[in-house]
Structure formats: C-alpha cells, structure tokens
C-alpha cells in the first residue's frame, strides 16, 4: 500500500541526525550505489534489494529532483526473490542424479558429486524462474527527521533500517510507544515517572493470573 496512491499501512521512524548540507551532491551517489539490480543468479544470488524511483518503479537511475518533494525525500525499495518449488526441485534433482549414475555406471554418487548436481539444478531452475517482487515506499522528511515506511512486519522493517543505514549512513528508530513516550516525557519533564510506570488495572475487579489460581476474584 504505497504512499503515492490508495490507502496506506506504515510504520513511523525517527532518523537520528540530519542529512549533510551538501546532500544534493551526496545523495544521488549514495542512492545510485544502492540502486536495485536484478539478482545475479549465476553468482548464486537468489535475492536482491535496492532503491527504485517511486513514480517509475522500473527506473533505477534516480534523479534527485524527481524524488524530492519539498521537505520529503521519497524512494521505493524493491525486493526480488527467486524461490524454487521444493517438490519440483527434488524431482528434477533425483532425475539428474539418476541420469549421472547411469552415465557413470555406478550405484552411488559421492557427497561432492551430489552437492555439485544440487547446485547445478538450482542454478538451472533459478535461471528460468521469474523472481517475485515486492515494493515498499518510504518518505523521509529531511527537516523534522520523520520517516514513513510502508511496511509493518518486524523482519522487513529491520532489513529496511539496515539498508537505509548502509545507504545514508544514518541510523533510525521506530516510533513505538516507548520512544514516543520517552520524547514526550522529556518535554513534560516526567522522565523519572516514565521509567517507574507500571501497567494500569482498568478493571475495577482484581484479576488474578490463571496460573496462580482463580481466574477472577472479587475486590
């Protein structure tokens, strides 16, 4: 669900630090370095990740003026993955192993031979496979350091954080309840109270964990 159209699902982040004053010179190089490139199957790469232009997702040569909208830098993150069907892979693997055994007039193949065949079959199948693609977008407010990312799974967000950090050499933290509370409590001068706060009981009844005995008891 992208930033540029339709409804949107996202996690918010706060980027630690500001872009350098000459970011108009440095960002294009940094983005270009980490642009999307298809997985290099012949090198054993089954997955690739990189930046594309959110307005033209097939475009990897990104012009900063096209992705900079006022204070916001918008980029799309493309992740391609080649996944082989395990049943087809095993079937093809056994087929090739049978063939090799017949050619070599042997009943058994060595571990190295089996491993080489496995790699060969994987490569052969991966070359024919179209990768599955997911595209997420980010919008980074360069002025106030807020960043919107259109992914919410923890694994994806962690990978995004690392990739962003590699690209721009800036860390970020998700604006989860504690981080938000920490910032707000500093403003309210309630930092000590925040560290001491414990879960509240909204129910007027005393709830006792089942493991300890009764589910509920009257107050």
């Amino acid at each position, binding site marked *: 669900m992208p930033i540029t159209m339709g409804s*949107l699902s996202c996690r918010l982040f706060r980027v630690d630090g500001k872009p350098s004053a000459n970011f108009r010179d440095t960002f294009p190089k940094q983005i270009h370095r980490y642009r999307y490139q298809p997985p290099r199957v012949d090198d054993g790469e089954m997955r690739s990740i990189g930046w594309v232009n959110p307005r033209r997702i097939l475009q990897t040569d990104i012009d900063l003026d096209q992705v900079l909208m006022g204070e*916001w830098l918008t980029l799309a993150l493309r992740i391609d993955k080649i996944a082989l069907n395990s049943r087809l892979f095993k079937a093809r693997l056994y087929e090739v192993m049978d063939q090799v055994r017949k050619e070599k007039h042997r009943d058994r193949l060595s571990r190295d031979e089996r491993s080489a065949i496995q790699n060969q079959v994987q490569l052969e199948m991966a070359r024919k496979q179209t990768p599955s693609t997911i595209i997420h977008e980010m919008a980074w407010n360069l002025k106030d350091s807020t960043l919107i990312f259109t992914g919410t799974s923890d694994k994806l967000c962690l990978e995004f954080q690392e990739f962003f950090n590699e690209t721009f050499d800036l860390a970020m933290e998700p604006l*989860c309840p504690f981080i938000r*509370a920490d910032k*707000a409590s500093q403003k309210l001068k309630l930092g000590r109270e925040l560290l001491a706060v414990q879960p509240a009981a909204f129910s007027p009844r005393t709830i006792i964990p*089942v*493991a300890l005995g009764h589910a509920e008891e009257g107050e």
Partner: protein
Amino acid sequence: MGLLEQIEQKAFLGTEFLTWLWARSEMDEGPIEIEGDESIEVEFLKTMTFEAQYGEATVQSLKGEAPGAAAEARAAVLEGKTVKRAKIKVVQSEMEWTFSLRGDTFDFGSIAIPAPKGLPFDEGTGLRLDALERLFALMNTLFETFLALRLDEDRWADELARIRQFVEPSGGVAD
C-alpha cells in the same frame, strides 16, 4: 535497562493509550479537548481487538458497526483486557481520517487519506503527505495528552476511577 528491553517492557503504554482513547470517546460522547489546539473527534469503528497478558482466552475480537459502544467491549476491559488494535475515525475541523492502529507498535494500517485524487503526481503526493503529517501530529498530540495524565499519579487515579466506573457502572463485584 537497555533500550530494547525498555521498548518491550513499556509497550503496554500503547495498548493503554488505545484503551484510554476508547473509554474517552465513549464516556464523553463528544470531541476530546486538546490544550492549545482544536478539539478532536474520535470514533471506534468496525473492528476492535482486545488482549490480556494472561487467562484462558487472551485475545478477543469485536466486529460490527460500533464495537466501541458494545457491552462486550466493556466486558473485555472488565476481564483485564486492553485494546490491542482498533479501527478508528479521527475528525478535526474539515479533515477526517480512518485507519487501524496497533497499540503495542503504533503501526498504522489502511489509512484512508483525505486528499483529492487524479492530481499530477507531485501535487497529489504532496497533498497526501501533508494529510498524513497532520494525522500523525494529531495522534502524537493525543498520545502526549494521555501520557501527561498517565504519568501524573493523582490525575491518573481520577481518570482510572472514571474509566472503572464506566466499564462497571454498578460497581459490582465479580462472581
């Protein structure tokens, strides 16, 4: 205590915030007054998920036109659950957003952005980002309003008493 540990341990503040927001929207039946800002109308729509940290049934989902107004919502809180996720409508002056919010992470889902369609890319995206920024600022203001109450022992005790009275008006005792 490390930051990650604190993030994990204080995640309850997010679900408590949603629980407080729900209670406020139901108890006051009107806009929530914000200091130095325009009041905000909040309505809980269609789906609400409640969660408890213990018990035999820890997750409960309510679906319907107005789950926030249902007796089942109050019953869930009475059983010790807090609101983990909810679909919310927020209105401030002429702007209206609907979205789902997950309390423990503060992830936003399916935000319907109040921005005109069919505009050129730059203009359309710019307006969408402005509308999003305003929503995030509003939610931040609401969270700060909650936190100011939550971290003030006396004010929070009063607020909690109101909420407890709301979830069990008779003040009865459990079986």
